[in-house]
């Protein structure tokens, strides 16, 4: 098991001491996290580390999940998609059943705590069953600024029953009746996805993925969806390829969605005509492969055109790579323009910045080093742990 002390060698000097001092003030207090599942989402990934760290510090930290029948899960997913802005059909019956299932969940779960942090949509209506003691915070991990109106009309009264809401960015929130705090997500530098890898481990993974390393690698990792714009990345690569002998790696998952399967098929067709375009479909838990690919990259792309606060850029910067990302979501927060990489708004912009960096190898190294330090200060899990503890102190003092 990884202990807080292990983070001294990666976190900025003094941060672990700040964590220990904050923990002294809240030792024994109960901090309950509620989410829709233990796997497969950004919040779950970070809670898997944060909750044991808090327990290790003497905080009475717990993590419970809500459950239900297939209708409950389907409505939760539809409601979350609608709150993200997609047009979805939500019937009164489905919403009523969703609320009822959480009433049943409330009876099964021990909801008594000093601070209850409810992650995203699935457990959100548990607020209607809050005990008298304790403060409740809704932690929204997605961009909820432009929800479908009907979905928001249903959801807003629940949000307004919380003591506060938590967003990854100010722009992800909208006007609500409770205070809104901002905490950026973070990466765990000691996890399988981000831990140091020996060169032979990197080579072994690349061999297994059939990716040669005899040319500079441009790497984008992400779902094969229109939001991540892998076809735009191919077009940018083509503009660069006229001047630089590089190889493009597009690695990710299709999740079986029709849109993704179509994009994946188009990418494979393109790759068939150009042996320097490598498309690799990764399994759901491909942490080691992602780690190795980011480490092998010369430049990492995250050319999304729509995004919440994915941490692909921070992961790559932690590995000392410059990142060219889209001007959306949390990417401008992660990428310091002209210091750790570039945010761009077009295919041409991505191509221009790729050429700019490939023509200046010394800049690649300098930006990579600056990126690692930027992540060390701003996007490591120790910073998020500090923020959560500060929230607990602030709301319960």
């Amino acid at each position, binding site marked *: 098991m990884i202990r807080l002390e292990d983070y001294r060698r990666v976190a*900025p*000097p*003094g*941060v672990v*001491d*700040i964590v220990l*001092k*904050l923990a002294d003030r809240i030792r024994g207090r109960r901090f309950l996290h509620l989410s829709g599942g233990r796997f497969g989402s950004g919040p779950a990934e970070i809670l898997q580390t944060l909750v044991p760290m808090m327990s290790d510090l003497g905080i009475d930290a717990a993590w419970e999940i809500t459950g239900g029948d297939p209708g409950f899960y389907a409505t939760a997913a539809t409601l979350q998609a609608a709150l993200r802005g997609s047009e979805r059909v939500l019937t009164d019956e489905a919403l009523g059943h969703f609320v009822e299932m959480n009433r049943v969940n409330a009876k099964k779960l021990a909801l008594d705590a000093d601070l209850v942090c409810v992650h995203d949509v699935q457990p959100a209506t548990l607020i209607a069953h809050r005990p008298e003691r304790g403060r409740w915070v809704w932690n929204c991990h997605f961009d909820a600024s432009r929800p479908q109106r009907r979905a928001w009309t249903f959801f807003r009264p629940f949000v307004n029953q919380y003591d506060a809401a938590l*967003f990854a960015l*100010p*722009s992800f*929130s909208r*006007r609500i009746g409770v*205070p*809104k*705090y*901002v*905490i950026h997500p973070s990466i765990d530098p000691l996890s399988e996805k981000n831990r140091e890898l020996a060169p032979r481990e990197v080579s072994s993974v690349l061999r297994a993925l059939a990716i040669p390393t005899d040319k500079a690698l441009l790497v984008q990792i992400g779902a094969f969806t229109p939001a991540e714009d892998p076809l735009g990345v191919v077009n940018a690569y083509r503009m660069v390829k006229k001047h630089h002998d590089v190889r493009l790696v597009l690695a990710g998952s299709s999740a079986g969605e029709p849109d993704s399967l179509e994009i994946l098929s188009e990418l494979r067709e393109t790759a068939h005509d150009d042996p320097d375009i490598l498309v690799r479909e990764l399994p759901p838990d491909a942490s080691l492969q992602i780690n190795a690919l980011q480490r092998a990259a010369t430049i990492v792309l995250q050319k999304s055109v729509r995004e919440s606060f994915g941490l692909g850029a921070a992961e790559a910067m932690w590995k000392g790579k410059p990142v060219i990302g889209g*001007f959306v979501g949390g990417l*401008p927060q992660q990428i*310091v*323009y002209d*210091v750790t990489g570039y945010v761009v*708004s077009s295919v041409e912009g991505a191509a221009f910045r790729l050429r700019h960096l490939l023509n200046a190898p010394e800049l690649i190294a300098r930006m990579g080093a*600056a990126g690692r*330090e*930027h992540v*060390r*200060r*701003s996007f490591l899990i120790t910073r998020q742990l*500090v*923020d959560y*503890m*500060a*929230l607990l*102190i*602030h709301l319960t003092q």
Partner: protein
Amino acid sequence: MSQALPPFVFTGCVELRQTLDHRATDERELLERLEEVPSGSVFYHTHGYFLRHRPITTAYGNDFASWVATQVRDQVLAERLAVVNPFEFASLEQLREELASIIHDHLLRLSAVPRLEFGEPFYFQQSHIVEVSLGPGASTLAEFRAGLVAVDASAIYFHMVEARARLGRRAGDFAEWIRTSLEMPELADRIERIDTYMTSLERVRARVLTLVDAALEARPR
């Protein structure tokens, strides 16, 4: 060696950010919102800038100038806002007035209000500072130096920025303690004169250390 009572206890801080329901998409809105937000928000976007930009010293010195330069792309106003040193103002209201007056004056000279085309709106925020005592305390200048080398950079911010600008301790905590408890007024004056504007917390730490080292060197053996 002179020994101080009471000892100096380093205090780090954590900034809990709160976003407000005020945003601006052009310079006139920036002016209007700036005039109505709580003073804590003025503090957050000016003095607080130095806590959040620890690793990389950026070019603008406050969030207003940075937004105008990078999002609205109005270099003239950005330059005029960037030069405002928040540490020169006795109160946040005076600082707010100065910033608002600069934007107002700039808009008077233009026929159209510069606005966002592709950039991000300006979101007004404020912060809640959670103090973290990092004891044990220092009783001598040598102990103070040892503590200063090791503390989290947020302690430099707390004692040199937060203490002066929001807590009313105008000299800053380092200078005040060295003057009153160690009775070393010359060293205190030098530390008080350190310019904390447009630099990084690590550079401020290095400057204080240089002055302390010189004082320790000059001490009779």
